[in-house]
């Protein structure tokens, strides 16, 4: 519990973060920028897991464990995405979304 801060305020902040991520995901044209937006979305979800665990079910640890799992999956996803981006840049010298059509081998 944060003294003086209710769960509603934290959930409001995470919702705002989530939709900022969605906004970036739709409007950006660059693959790395899209990756950054995905990180924002994932982080908003992780804070929700942790905060709801802390405020509503403080005696169990499931929220924290799921947060660890999400962070692990995010790390794997980022490593793969960076590998794909670098390989793509070698092949077509661009990472803009609308110029990518060589993925279909």
């Amino acid at each position, binding site marked *: 519990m944060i003294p003086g801060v209710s769960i509603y305020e934290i959930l409001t902040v995470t*919702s705002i973060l989530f939709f900022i991520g969605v906004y970036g995901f739709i409007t950006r044209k660059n693959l790395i920028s899209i990756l950054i937006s995905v990180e924002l979305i994932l982080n908003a979800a992780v804070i929700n897991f942790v905060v709801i665990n802390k405020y509503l079910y403080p005696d169990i640890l499931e929220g924290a464990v799921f947060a660890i799992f999400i962070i692990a999956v995010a790390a794997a996803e980022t490593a*793969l995405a960076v590998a794909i981006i670098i390989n793509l840049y070698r092949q077509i010298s661009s990472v803009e979304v609308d110029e990518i059509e060589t993925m279909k081998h």
Partner: protein
Amino acid sequence: MEEIIFYILAAILVIFAIASVTSRKMLRSVIYLLFVLCGIAGIYFLIDYNFLAAIQLTIYAGGIIVLIIFSVFLVHHIELQLELAKPGKQLLTALACLTGLGLFLVTIYLHPFEVVENTNTISTAEVGNLLLSYTEGGFILPFEVISVLLLAAMVGAIVIAKGKKLSTNNQSTE
């Protein structure tokens, strides 16, 4: 005191997240994301989950940000300005996001949460025991699955990033 710190952290999170998705310089956008991730670690510290905050700082702020910065260096010219979406599309997306945000907030504020007053914290030993416990409610199977997933992702990333030689690729794409 904690209240003030939380509001400062929330302001940092929102401002730098907006800066991160609207900045036209790639590297600055990544650095703004770094501030957002550190702010999130601050929230974990505030609710006394120190272990998660440490994980957030080491894996996200230490690992993922460095990976993204490396890919920016390998892929981009630093001075290059990113192109923005058309204003109409930006406005439409912003409207859609605000609508979704409003829906979220209405749902959240209408739901009666049964908050339990507590000062519990989690210790690393408890989390480790839960992750390795094979009794009911234990997480040994997801833990093993996630480790295999990480291994597969790392091997796959190496294989994909190694690629073929440039000259053969240029010939095959022409």
